[in-house]
């Protein structure tokens, strides 16, 4: 019964996305009631290099998903996150975040390995070991106090490190800003994570392993959103979509260490 509901919820998402996408297309088809007159200042007077721009051939689709994420946040995700923040004492919230951040080290570990970054691999392994033991299964983060800095890695970065271009910008449902390459990377990271998880199957000995696993995943998603302060359309800046796109893309490209175009 529970499984059915969950499946339905999962199936609902693409359907909703599609529905929102279609309404978006429908509205853009509206005819203006009066004729347009050219603006006083247009791009034709522009004689400068374009700046802060990112390749985005699927912009209309992406903007639909961007709006979908806004509604998803507004009507489902953020209310759930707020309830979680309301009922959970701040100290516990911090422990939960540390716990999931520590699980995330698995992804950092595999990807420093894929990038053959020995020192980083050792640091991350040290962090994972320290926090899993002295840090009581990741509930605390003593590793940072010991000077072991966290190195965030993912398979998108690994691909980028080995020369794969980011490809077009992509806004993913719920997840948010990404790119074709990073979306692929996300799938691989999730695959590896669940592969390891199923191999270990920490709750396999109980009769309730499925609800426990689901609970862990759900809480993980809530914690991820709890740790992000970003809110869609909150800046009140009309070019927010373009700015988010630029900062997401540029930050990743810079952190990858790929050569940047010079003038």
């Amino acid at each position: 019964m529970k499984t059915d509901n969950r499946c339905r919820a999962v199936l609902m998402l693409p359907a909703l996305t599609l529905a929102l996408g279609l309404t978006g297309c429908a509205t853009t088809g509206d005819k203006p009631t009066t004729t347009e007159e050219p603006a006083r200042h247009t791009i034709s007077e522009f004689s400068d290099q374009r700046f802060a721009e990112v390749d985005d051939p699927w912009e209309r689709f992406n903007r639909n998903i961007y709006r979908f994420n806004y509604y998803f946040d507004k009507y489902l995700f953020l209310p759930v996150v707020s309830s979680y923040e309301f009922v959970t004492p701040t100290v516990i919230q911090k422990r939960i975040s540390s716990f999931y951040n520590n699980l995330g080290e698995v992804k950092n570990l595999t990807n420093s390995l894929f990038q053959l970054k020995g020192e980083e691999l050792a640091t991350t392994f040290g962090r994972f070991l320290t926090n899993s033991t002295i840090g009581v299964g990741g509930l605390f983060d003593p590793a940072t106090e010991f000077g072991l800095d966290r190195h965030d890695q993912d398979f998108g970065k690994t691909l980028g490190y080995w020369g794969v271009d980011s490809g077009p910008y992509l806004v993913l449902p719920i997840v948010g800003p990404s790119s074709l390459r990073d979306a692929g990377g996300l799938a691989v990271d999730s695959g590896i994570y669940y592969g390891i998880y199923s191999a270990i199957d920490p709750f396999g000995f109980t009769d309730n392993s499925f609800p426990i696993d689901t609970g862990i995943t759900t809480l993980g998603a809530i914690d991820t959103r709890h740790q992000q302060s970003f809110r869609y359309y909150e800046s009140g800046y009309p070019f927010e979509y373009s700015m988010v796109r630029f900062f997401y893309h540029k930050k990743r490209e810079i952190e990858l260490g790929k050569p940047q175009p010079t003038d």
Partner: protein
Amino acid sequence: MKHLRFLYIACLVLLPLTGYAADEGYYGYPLTGSYEATILGTPVDMIPELPAKIPTRQLVLDVIPDRIRPPIFFYDEGLRCTFAYQDKKAPLVFLIAGAGGSDRGTKLLTVMKALHQAGFHVITLPSPTNSNFIVSASGSRVPGHLTEDAADLYRAMEAAWQKVKGDIEVSSFHLGGYSLGASHAAFVAKLDEERQIFNFRKVLLINPPVSLYNSVTRIEEMIRQIPGGSKKQGVFFNKMLSRFSQFYRSGNFVAINDDFLYSMYTNELFSHEETAGLIGLTFRISLAGIIFSSDVMTNSGYVVPKNRVLHHTDPLFDYFLVSTHLSYFDFFNEYFYPYFQSMQPGLTKQALIDSLSLQSIEGYLKSSPKFGMMTNENDFILTRAELNYLRQLFGERGKIYPRGGHLGNLEYKDNLTYIVNFFKQGGEHHEN
């Protein structure tokens, strides 16, 4: 970072002593450059630790009923204000954001938390130049006119008060704002003398411009001095960005974070002029949002073709490029002044410029004891003469810090303490 942490601990231990030290003119804000302070703000370890979670509620106000919002602003459902409340009777402080700022800007929220911790109710308001305000709360939809903005703000504050007054007990009202928000606060306070809804007891102006037009002229000069002038800001931006990326790759950095930015400063990655250019460009990016939003709301055909209906899927990047290449003078001469001239025939350009200044209400500012003013010796939006003007105008009511640039030191502990104490004096006055 370790040094900073040590310094922070040292500050905590020596806290009882800093009071005396302050009397002797000691001021510990570390960044000496005006531009650098403005960009980097206050090092994290020098911002006092404020509670992560305080009771707040977001207010969405229907300030102008039946307002028609174009489809591009579908997400705008009313003016957004943030309300932090106490469970007992307390004074309420309204805070107004700086140019382009929303009700949830980082600096604004820090001041809000500091005041809340000290026992105040706080309501933060977006700047009248923020898109949300232009769409939902601006009567003219053309922001930047201090008297008109003040009337809009006053109406918004009344709406906010109507919304919360059943839930809290308020002993008195106060008002504060920074940068352009400080100019707004002065004009709102003046309006309040006539309307007398709030009877503000204390009004704090933080880093105010004396003349809005002069201050913006100075910022425009900062972008005009880049190679090729402001019409080549794209070339400049790309060049700076490329240097930024190369610097990141050359060092052993973990991520683009505070450590990295601080190291950028200590290595003098950008020259003084380049830093100025970056501040000027940031201003232009902010101004572009104002120009675009106002143009869409008034259907003036300034950067968006007249009668074009934009939808949420429409790419807007070309509008961004066009708008960022317009200066404040373009905006003022081609859009802002013509609008107010059409409303008020006979209005000269100089008269309009003069009205956008504290000088235009100096008699009131000079005589009213409710005002306080804080700014910095090296705030680049002021000339030396303007700084002296503020010094004379506010006399004992003014506090001028030796450094901090424009708002760079706002979150520094001494500054926050000063702000809190300023409003506390208003409370004491009330109880006597």
